[in-house]
């Protein structure tokens, strides 16, 4: 775990409030697993707390990356992300990481199916690269959002996945409705036996996908998000209820016990 003072290399405006920020990192950070995250602070005393951001890319994830960099995909949502979006080349960043556990590759005989909700697609570019490096076939992806503008990096995902099924709440791209619709059809066709679901997005989506995974008995890993003050296990602000091995429900920390948790452990 490093606490780096680094600087912005570029901060790409992807439109509709979505940005991809790139900053310099030392070699040790290049070992990060997909869905691990950084706590990033911007200069100045406001906001007080750093914000958690999933690692999106490292060396070689995107074709035009500079070496020795990391990328973070984010959407302007509140004070912290708005400040981040205003930073240009050379601006200073305080970056703590790598944090959390990250996605593991699927077991032999299973293929990754990525399920992303809007900006929840952030951890998947690095995961797709990891799958390719480990000799796995390109995964399929179900990518849902409110509207067509809320599907950042869509063309990159289309180039990098075997297939991308789109859903939007307003029907402006792909199927009108939720990611659970195409997912349920796939699982009803019996594909669940050969799949491992990797899911990131808003909590209601995670819950709905987890229910389907449970109904069809498919392994399912969720990359969770929660408000957190520290990112390394001490503030206890980011807990979620989970079923312990003893069957009892307890609180675990998204930052160090997650952010990836098996869906069947969640006690929502």
């Amino acid at each position, binding site marked *: 775990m490093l606490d780096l003072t680094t600087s912005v290399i570029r901060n790409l405006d992807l439109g509709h409030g979505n940005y991809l920020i790139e900053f310099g990192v030392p070699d040790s950070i290049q070992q990060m697993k997909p869905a691990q995250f950084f706590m990033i602070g911007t200069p100045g005393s*406001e906001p007080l707390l750093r914000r958690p951001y999933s690692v999106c890319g490292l060396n070689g994830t995107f074709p035009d990356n500079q070496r020795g960099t990391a990328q973070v995909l984010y959407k302007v949502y509140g004070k912290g992300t708005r400040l981040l979006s205003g930073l240009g080349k050379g601006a200073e960043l305080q970056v703590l990481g790598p944090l959390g556990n990250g996605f593991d590759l699927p077991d032999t005989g299973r293929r990754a199916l990525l399920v992303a909700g809007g900006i929840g697609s952030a951890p998947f570019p690095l995961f797709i690269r990891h799958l390719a490096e480990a000799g796995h076939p390109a995964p399929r992806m179900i990518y849902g959002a409110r509207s067509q503008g809320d599907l950042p990096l869509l063309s990159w995902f289309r180039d990098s996945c075997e297939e991308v099924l789109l859903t939007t709440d307003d029907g402006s791209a792909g199927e009108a409705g939720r990611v659970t619709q195409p997912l349920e059809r796939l699982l009803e066709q019996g594909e669940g036996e050969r799949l491992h679901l990797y899911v990131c997005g808003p909590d209601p989506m995670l819950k709905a996908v987890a229910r389907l995974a449970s109904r069809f008995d498919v392994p399912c890993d969720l990359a969770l998000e929660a408000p957190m003050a520290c990112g390394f296990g001490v503030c206890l602000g980011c807990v979620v209820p989970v079923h312990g091995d003893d069957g009892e429900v307890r609180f675990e920390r998204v930052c160090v016990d997650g952010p990836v948790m098996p869906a069947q452990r969640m006690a929502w």
Partner: protein
Amino acid sequence: MVDLSVELGPLKLKNPVLTASGTFGYGLEFEPFFDLGSLGGIVSKGLSPRPRHGNPPQRIAETPAGMLNTIGLQNVGVDAFLSEKLPKLEHYDMAVLANVFGETEAEYVEVCKKLDGAPGLAGIELNVSCPNVECGGIAFGNDPRALASVTAACRKATGLPLLVKLSPNVTDIRETARAAEDAGADALSLVNTFVGMAIDVEARRPVLNRVSGGLSGPAIRPLAVHMTWQTYNAVKIPLMGMGGITCARDALEFILAGASAVQVGTSNFVTPTSAADLVNELRDYLEQHGFESVRELVGSLQVES
């Protein structure tokens, strides 16, 4: 070489910088960031007789220059602290203080008795902001009589240096400060968090699951410095000051107002090396200003009469 050592009654510290309860885990979580032995001491997460799961989320909310929390005193319990945490801290040259709370006076006493004589433990800090279930849920620290009673009971239960961590959620902190002093506290820690609330106006709901929480961070610093100054002029026992300290200049405000030592809290979340950095900054300040000892500065505030 400047002298950073301080004494708070029987508690001797090699420097006046500690970390506040609830912001530093059990200390071990910070081992990747710096040598814990560079600190004057640490204060553990609040310990209860048995482990506690804490409150359901959402537990924290950021507010201007601060944060609200309602963690709900989640902790491993005093037994696990003694068997799993404390032994791993023993080799560091710094003071480990155990923060203690209970829902009844008997629970405070039970924890203090278990901690008494534990190898490597330098003292006990009582968290009196916990609701007293035997007195209608009013926090021990908001009622001078209940505060005096629990302090006296813990005083009998342990020979360790005993600090009482005062709540700022009172009309006049000097009353509770005197009550703790008269009941046998060796020193006072001040202040705990201020009760606060944040509302999501879109959802028209409280941001925190438990509606209200404790406010910490730079937002409370002027309030805490004021209370330190008030208390310094009201009691004879030494003080440990805290509330929004992020750097040596913040810490010096408390020291000038009468604190013999300080605790760094919320800042540990933002910059994990905060407390260790502060020790160095404080040494630099003393050297640059020609002081031989930090003790010269305690309560040395010049006030025009």
